[in-house]
């Protein structure tokens, strides 16, 4: 099993969700983050004091999947999240050792779906 984490542009979320659904991926956990990458930063002032800010709003999606879903999930995200602008985001894949469904106590491949 793998945990797939994608950082995307906020306004691509709906499209990504739709594309994932097509790929059969309907479970996910989503939250708002700020990110900095190749996008330029900017300066913020408060009452005359300036400081450098270079974090822009992004949305982070975390999806636990079985091995055979890894590539379809990545493909779905890449195709839907791509806008062609700098700042489109990244996908990270990490190993996932266990997955437990709280309601039933089920484990593993059954639990993840």
């Amino acid at each position: 099993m793998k945990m797939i984490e994608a950082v995307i542009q906020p306004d691509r979320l709906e499209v990504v969700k739709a594309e994932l659904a097509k790929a059969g991926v309907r479970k996910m956990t989503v939250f708002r983050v700020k990110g900095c990458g190749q996008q330029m930063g900017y300066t913020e002032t408060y009452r005359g004091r300036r400081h450098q800010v270079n974090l822009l709003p992004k949305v982070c999606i975390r999806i636990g999947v079985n091995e055979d879903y890894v590539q379809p999930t990545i493909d779905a995200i890449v195709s839907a999240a791509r806008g062609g602008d700098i700042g489109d985001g990244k996908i990270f894949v990490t190993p996932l050792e266990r997955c437990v469904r709280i309601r039933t106590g089920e484990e593993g491949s059954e639990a993840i779906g």
Partner: protein
Amino acid sequence: MSDSPVSVMRLARGTDVLFLLIGAVMIFAMHAGFAFLEAGSVRRQSQVNAMNKIVADWAVSTVVYFLIGFPIARGIQFWAEAGVLVGSRQIDMMHFFLYLGFAACIPAIISGGIAERAKFWTNAVAGGVFVGLVYPLFEACTWGQLSGLAFGENSWLASWTGAGFHDYAGSVVVHSMGGWLALPAILILGPRRRRYTAEGTSVPIPVSSIPFLALGSWILCVGWFGFNVMSAGRIADVSALVALNSLMAMVGGILAAMLFSHNDAGFTHNGALAGLVAVCAGSDIFHPAGAFVVGAGAGAIFVFGFPMVTERMKIDDVLGVWPLHGLCGSWGGIAAGIFGQRLFGGLGGVSFVAQLTVTGIAVLFAFTAGALVYGVLNMTFGIRLADQEEMLGPDLAIHHLEASPEEAL
């Protein structure tokens, strides 16, 4: 001390000042309503900008209307010693404050249409031109020193149609004017980034805060009673009917918007405003039931007009100021010529043709003036933020400050 005998004259003058003060301050307070209505209806990245735009517009309006606008509209200026002002110009000063509130609505209305992408200072300049020249000219023709020539009781219009143009509290003079001045600005600016896809699909941009939007609407509704009732200009002419009609039209707007929008909170709170926009013109001559119908009509106009404008015509009028003030305001001007008739229980003395004619003139005048001013500004300084600035949002790009600085990361 206040038990000492007071001459009726002095009491009457004091009460007039009080009456006008209450009206002026209520209208001033409405501008906080404009600010919150906009802040709630834009993205968080544009809330600070909404706030500062309204404040700046008020300040610029005060200066230009004091220096140019009010003298044009009413032929009154204040270049005399304080002693003279205090002695014989008390009511004039209050009238200035009151009518400034009306004038300053013009940039406040426009503000909501051009939100999230307009440059700050070019827009402030446009506001200054409108409040200093464009609006006062029309004000002079309807309520001011040119009304005898233009649209007033003894004008050509009155002799042609049998009655002067009737706009008690500004459905046409203020709201329609503001809405139709905004339209060319919105068109010239173009939609916000990513508002419509290249293929022309509409991708609505969600608003930031319904509570702020509702707060803005409430402040506007409350202040509106000053706007309409204090249009009497002095206490002896105050009319309770104006208050009751404003109430009924607001309620008509609420109910219509609520029903037609299936209880959408954005529409409901704007529906109240639509009703109030439309009732201004005839608030002194409608029957309360007529006012209700006029308000309900305005509510419907907004609920159906807003998606027509933003979804079908693909005009990115962020707060819907053209349907809200432009269309509902024009509807109010015309409706005064219908529901103001005795046939509909109204007070009469109003001509449908006169209402239609001047409402039409106002539309043309405003649209042309708006196109001219924003067109020239666009060609000279540019009126739109750079792409990168718009992406960051006007709060950071213009004011270097977010709405919630503590939460910045």
